[in-house]
């Protein structure tokens, strides 16, 4: 283990300055991912700049139905927030479907967004990995890839974004608030935070050095819409998603779809907003056939590998089940 320095920043400017002056510094939040990677030798920051005291620790509900979630709000707090549970139940469910009680009590909003892939090669420094060591190769393609991605991959990397919360946020049209090194604030759609691997899999987000995530903003959920998050995994708790779906659905009186938003987890290097499927479904009934057709279009560009090809049909079936359940009264579920 390498020695490293620990600094606790008291305000954003100080945090940014600390990171700016030390090129190998990293922000530390709950540490549940970063510290693990340090132990494994995957990450080796010279300085950890603790951002948990910067005042981004509140969930602010707005009168228009939107909400601003602070970057350092604990996952457990966010999941249990009464306003979130009422207005954005899919977000609450997504968080509770992830990790364990202990981890959620330490993990934060921003840290959760930026958690790294669970690809076994990425985590094993004795083996090659393009993401960890650009140019060294991607053993997952010919090796262990059952958990990895089928969409948005490249010949250089097939890693999955493993998280749950961000999948729900993607379906909720979240904006990520970022404070630049120069103090400038900007906001970008959550989907645009992540970049696909292409031939630079070590670049995972659009964030620049010193960019601090300050919070996540959700616009009001569409009036009259129902929402759900469902995760399929290898055991009933404490496992990353094989496939997950966050769905927001509003139907007309005749049952046809007025508005639908779908985001998939466990299948791509980022939370995957299924916009093609969404637009195919508008005006239609959420029947298995229609879902099949819509998801067929969505997954047309998929690049499955031998051991994860099952995720394609699974994603389709899961979307079908979630939409079906959302159109049935709660007590029938």
């Amino acid at each position, binding site marked *: 283990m390498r020695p490293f320095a620990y600094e606790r920043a008291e305000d954003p400017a100080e945090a940014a300055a600390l990171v700016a002056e030390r090129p190998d510094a990293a922000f530390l939040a709950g540490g549940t991912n970063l510290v693990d990677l340090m132990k494994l030798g995957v990450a080796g920051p010279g300085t950890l700049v603790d951002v948990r005291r910067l005042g981004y620790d509140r969930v602010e509900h707005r009168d228009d139905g939107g909400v601003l979630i602070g970057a350092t709000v604990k996952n457990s707090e966010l999941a249990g927030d009464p306003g979130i549970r009422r207005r954005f139940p899919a977000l609450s469910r997504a968080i509770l479907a992830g990790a364990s009680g202990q981890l959620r009590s330490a993990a934060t909003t921003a840290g959760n967004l930026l958690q790294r892939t669970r690809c076994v090669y990425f985590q094993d420094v004795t083996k090659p990995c393009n993401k960890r060591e650009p140019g060294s190769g991607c053993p997952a393609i010919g090796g262990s890839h059952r958990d990895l991605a089928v969409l948005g991959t490249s010949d250089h990397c097939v890693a999955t974004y493993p998280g749950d919360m961000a999948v729900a946020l993607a379906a909720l049209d979240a904006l990520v608030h970022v404070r630049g090194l120069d103090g400038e604030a900007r906001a970008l759609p959550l989907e645009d935070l992540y970049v696909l691997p292409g031939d630079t899999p070590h670049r995972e987000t659009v964030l620049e050095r010193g960019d601090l995530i300050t919070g996540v903003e959700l616009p009001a959920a569409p009036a009259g819409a129902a929402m759900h998050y469902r995760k399929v995994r*290898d*055991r009933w708790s404490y496992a990353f998603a094989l496939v997950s779906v966050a769905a927001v659905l509003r139907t007309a009186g005749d049952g046809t779809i007025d508005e639908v938003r779908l985001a998939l987890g466990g299948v791509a290097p980022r939370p995957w907003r299924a916009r093609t499927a969404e637009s195919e479904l508008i005006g239609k009934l959420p029947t298995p056939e229609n879902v099949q057709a819509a998801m067929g279009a969505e997954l047309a560009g998929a690049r499955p590998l031998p051991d994860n090809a099952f995720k394609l049909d*699974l994603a389709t*079936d899961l979307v079908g*089940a979630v939409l079906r359940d959302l159109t049935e009264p709660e007590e029938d579920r």
Partner: protein
Amino acid sequence: MSTTTQRATGAPIVRVDGRAKVTGAAQYAYEYPLENMAYAWPVQSTIAKGRVESIDDSAALARPGVIAVLTPDNVARLQVDVELPLPFLAAAVPDLSLLQSREVAFRGQIVAAVIATSLEAAREGAGAVEVGYEEQAHDAVLRFDDDRAYVPGVVNDFSPGNVERGEADRAFAEAPVRIDATYSTPAEHAVPMEPHSATAAWDGDRLTIYNSDQGPFYSSLPISALFGLDPGQVEIVAEYVGGGFGSKAAPRPPTMLAALAARLVDRPVKVALNRPQSFSLTTYRTPTIQRLRLGAERDGRLAAIVHESVQQSSTLVEYTEQSVSSTRLLYAAPDVRTTARVRRLDVPTPGWLRAPGDAPGVYALESAVDELAVELGMDPIELRVRNEPDADPETGQPFSSRNLVGALREGAARFGWEGRDPAPASRREGNWLVGTGVAAAHYPALVFPSTAQARAEADGGFVVRVGAADIGTGARTVLTQVAADALDVPLERVRVDIGRASIGVAPFAGGSIGTASWSWAVEKACGALLDAVQEHGGVPPEGLEVQADTTEDVGALAEMSRGGYGAQFAEVRVDVDTGQIRVDRMLGVFATGRVLNPRTARSQIVGAMTMGLSMALMEIAEPDPEFGDFANHDLASYHVASNADVRDVDCVFLHEDDKNLNSIGGKGIGEIGIVGAAAAIANAVHHAIGLRVRDLPIRIEDVRPALQDLRVR
């Protein structure tokens, strides 16, 4: 002996060491604070086969806190060609012969180690050691038809690799109803809560190791022999052990690393593996590929069984599991051939893991029996009952007792088996497909010689000493109960000391032999002590102490077929949309002789059944052919059942009075709870969806092909 008014054995006594454990007072191997402690961290091979050409330790030695780097050049020379009395101890030697050669036999093997004043410095130093290799092509993949696999002379349970009665292949070919199916089980790891760890300290030529160990006395034998010492010069202390499941039943590399490192730097050294290291430096359950052929008459009577299994071992050690052994005696078929083959690969050495051999072997056998029941259109319980033998079908020996039929019947009644529609995919509850399954369980009941000492104090207290290990099973508690009854005194007057090699000859906590073997010696010592007290006319001021040894008693046991039997039941549901599998309930009924403590016995069985659930649906150490190791090697990616997966797991013990076993009349219950559990679940999955998945674990993608046609509501 006077008659006891209140017997401790048979009562659900709470653990005598429970309080010490939950308050942290119990000391584990890594927790002994010795003066001047140093820490060792292994450097592991990054190739699967070849030779270490060079080791550059200069950068590591330059790091603050680093004391030394242990390499093949400065390591103490060990007597690697030692002879050991017990074959399974001899089998531990090659992996314990650390750094004695420069050959690399598997990826992750220890090729050097850094010793430092702190764990962190040792770890950091290990990362700075540069190792140069001459790499050779490796093969780390097990295949059924690999012609380099061979039939070993004996397998792990001392039985031959190949046993045949009658002409099984011919009888199978002629049988009117036939099942021919191939099953596989993956490599599985024990990963006990307490990782493998050791604290070693030398005092001249005396070595003390505080070791996470299932058998301190046995462990002292290979370690002393390797160092060229007498067994008495090596003390192994294992007072508390946080689980082992077989992986700590013989000393493993971390133990030897601590001893060698301490020798080099002449100060105490601690070693504890982290999880990733545990996957290559401790033993694991071998993967198996098993072909089962069952031939039967139309009325269900088995005419032939051919059970062939191929397993892997390392190039260092021939370890072959007894995966076909239970098949030799579970059913009364006239023509039976059972063959275990082993393929030596460039992989870490596999070893014992709860019910070695029997857990994967009975999974395959009991799946095939279920397939036969379906083929015959016969109830799977009735099929088993129809093939119940009167005597051991392999040896002809009488059973000391056997109540498989009773377990099946009792389980059927309690589980609600009657009225089950045998048609697959016949039960639908909303989005769920529900199925039930049953399987038989068997585990042999063995007993090994042991010694014990019993001491009477003048104040009325008693101290009993036996070289046992309590790996979480409750052995310390049960032995206290046994001693109290044998001495005819209340529990509070008895203290049982265990967990030291120096106490004397005693077998390990493994193979479900521990309690029976230790208890016999304890009872014998206590009986002799009471006689001595009577002879003396009371306890003298300096106390009285006696010894007992059961070697002759064990040797005098009549030849009989001894084993525990059980029936496992499971109900599962499969989500018709996704293929997610949930185990609603499991029930195990066991006929395992006398139950000494229903509380700890239940926890053994329920724990083992839960392990069977994990085996059926989750556990897999994925081989990584390119690198030769396991791709997943932590508990985030190696799944075992979480609380949410374990809903209703229950067990029942049938009353069984067997006078032909051992002094306590118990058959051992450490392993049998996992045997058959995975088969019951797999059979239930088949019943739920109509698709037979023959490769464990059964995962979502395996069951999904059946769902499409079942989805209509």
